[in-house]
């Protein structure tokens, strides 16, 4: 299908963005990489009065270390993240997740800010942000505010970003040597939206699991943590008994609705499989 009619503004600076957002309010839509938005327009699932094209705002691009965090600008593309040595060295969970994001041509254009601000519950970055408790940086005409990933994702396609605000970047904590990370996902076709996906971050003291964060995608109307499974893992060593206890706890954590890709029982079964594989991998990984 073809997109409905809209107006178009190529923003030259942040001032353009804020004044257009003020004028058009909720009926305006920011255009970053457009890899979800243009599909939604062509499918007529979105009907904005104006697209504010922010893709030329170079200040929102790039990956930098700043103290003990890595800051990634909202307009940084999946391809740039995939090619980044900083990401490989300091945000291994994100580096593992990027190859699962869509396909080559889409990775050349789609952006991390676009994906996070869309808040698709089946997308990779929201789950990674949640597992690492990343900080989302939101700007408005009056200033900047910072929101933790745990507060950022509200429901299907709803985030903490308000009508006159824009997500400008995201900060991930730098990985510590005793941390282990596993990202894993199952989809019908490599690069498509996940039937189920999982982001695991844990720290080991010797063989004992200390802190653990376990986030799932495509299991609810937003990315979610699995608190019971996380509790079942804390203070344990990785062995077959721990794995089955964590799987049993996970069953209590996840109440997915079925979707076109898999029914609820399949999703729950696959989540247990992913968790088991991830724990075995985390236990076997040495820096």
């Amino acid at each position, binding site marked *: 299908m073809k997109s409905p009619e809209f107006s178009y503004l190529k923003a030259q600076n942040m001032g353009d963005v804020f004044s257009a957002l003020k004028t058009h309010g909720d009926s305006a839509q920011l255009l970053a990489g457009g890899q979800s938005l*243009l599909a939604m327009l062509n499918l007529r699932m979105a009907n904005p009065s104006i697209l504010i094209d922010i893709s030329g705002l170079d200040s929102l691009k790039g990956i930098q270390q700043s103290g003990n965090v890595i800051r990634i600008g909202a307009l940084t593309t999946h391809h740039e993240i995939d090619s980044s040595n900083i990401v490989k060295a300091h945000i291994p969970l994100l580096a593992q997740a990027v190859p699962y994001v869509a396909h*080559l041509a*889409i990775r*050349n254009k789609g952006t991390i800010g676009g994906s996070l601000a869309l808040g698709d519950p089946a997308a990779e970055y929201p789950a990674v942000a949640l597992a690492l408790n990343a900080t989302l940086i939101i700007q408005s005409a009056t200033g900047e505010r910072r929101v933790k990933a745990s507060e950022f994702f509200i429901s299907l396609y709803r985030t903490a970003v308000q009508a006159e605000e824009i997500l400008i970047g995201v900060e991930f904590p730098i990985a510590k040597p005793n941390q282990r990370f596993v990202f894993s996902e199952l989809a019908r076709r490599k*690069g498509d939206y996940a039937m189920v996906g999982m982001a695991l971050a844990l720290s080991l003291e010797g063989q004992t699991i200390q802190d653990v964060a376990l986030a799932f995608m495509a299991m609810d109307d937003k990315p979610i943590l699995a608190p019971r499974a996380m509790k079942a893992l804390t203070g344990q060593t990785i062995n077959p008994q721990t794995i089955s206890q964590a799987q049993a706890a996970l069953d209590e954590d996840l109440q997915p609705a079925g979707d076109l890709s898999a029914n609820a029982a399949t999703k729950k079964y696959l989540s247990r499989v992913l968790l088991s594989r991830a724990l075995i991998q985390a236990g076997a990984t040495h820096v």
Partner: protein
Amino acid sequence: MSENCMHAQFTVNGETVDAQVPVRMHLVDYLREEMGLTGSHLGCEHGVCGACQVMVDGQVVRGCLTLAIQADGKNVQTIEGLTESRELQQLQAAFLEHNAFQCGFCSSGMLLTALEITKHHKQATRDEIRELISGNYCRCTGYQAIVNAIESVLVKSSSESGVKV
């Protein structure tokens, strides 16, 4: 109702376009309908099939997920231009040799992905080639012939660069 248009200037296969562009029109509709460049195909129009791919500033992108107006200031190359410039010659010959064209609907998009593989993933294994072309649907070949064709070009270029060293 008259279509909402804006001015854009860009190049397509080296030729300058300076025109009023309907803002809601995606790039492939512009290439096909306004310029007669029908080599880029439209399958799904929502980014799934890959038949619409073109190069923008040297990177392969989905033409259906790019607005024509977003090409303003950029350099667009299509299957026509890349054929003319012979950049695709080796891949096209390999596709022909391995019977990787068949109906041809996916071929222009597939060849552009293949070009990016030969440029940036020179060491790709068969499995990696399959992953890299996973965003391009083909309903004829079962992909085997396409993987064979791309692999043959990678092998050939690595053995040629080996000889030069």
